[in-house]
């Protein structure tokens, strides 16, 4: 694959898989009663765990074959150790991420804030 770039990525675990979100696309992260909510520039996603921020993670573009056989838009692909990581497209996260917002939790936090202390280290 061509077009590999080093990115700052927020690493998540959700439904047993590793996922990434480009750090620049993240506004803030809040903890809910059943996991985490990651607020993006456009909407939000849920995650079972927030693992940390990885600096300079090599992200490959998601090429044609994956796009042909997987209906989700993908921001890129990465490898952590030997485990594949899907870097989500913040404008169109995979369906598995779309949050089921309850009326008490659907409001975005009043202001952006730094990521919490449990998110500053790689796993």
């Amino acid at each position: 694959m061509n077009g590999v770039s080093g990115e700052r990525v927020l690493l998540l675990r959700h439904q047993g898989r590793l996922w990434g979100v480009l750090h620049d696309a993240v506004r803030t992260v809040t903890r809910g009663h059943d996991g985490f909510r990651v607020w993006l520039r456009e909407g939000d996603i849920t995650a079972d765990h927030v693992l940390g921020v990885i600096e300079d993670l090599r992200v490959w573009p998601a090429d044609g074959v994956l796009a042909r056989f997987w209906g989700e838009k993908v921001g890129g692909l990465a490898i952590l150790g030997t485990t594949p990581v899907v870097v989500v497209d913040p404008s169109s996260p995979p369906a598995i991420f779309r949050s089921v917002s309850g009326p008490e939790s659907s409001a975005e936090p009043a202001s952006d804030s730094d990521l919490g202390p449990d998110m500053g280290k790689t796993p």
Partner: protein
Amino acid sequence: MPVSPADTAAGQSGGVAPADDRYLLVQAGDEKCALPLDRVRRIVRSLSVTPLPGASAELKGLAEFGGEPLTVLDFSRLLGAAPGASPAYPVTVIAWAGPDESHELVGLQVDAVLEVVSVPADNIAAGGDGIVRGDVSLGGEPVRVISLSVLGSVG
């Protein structure tokens, strides 16, 4: 057990066939298929794959190969082949897919790698524009001749 195309080609008997006529014969479900050898980069034991939610049946998932992400396809599903016996030593064929000008590496999970064969183009009965380029008879058995150049975002 990485095997390079050069290694696999060395095992064939007889004269040296033109590179374009050489194929890697694989078993995928109940089908025997001939993959163009010049598209094969490596053959490895079946890679550990991370499935993707909501993916089509042909997409096994993602794997790591050489430190890079690799899309892995279930080749028998891709062909619509009936499942064969449980393979004793399933393998992943790492191959270049897509047109020459924009090809990418993919993993093709197959049940077995059989041998390298020579198939002159004249012997191939044309099969269409899809991934199955045509059919040929080898040793009295039907073999599907594969084109990996059409395996990409379209087709």
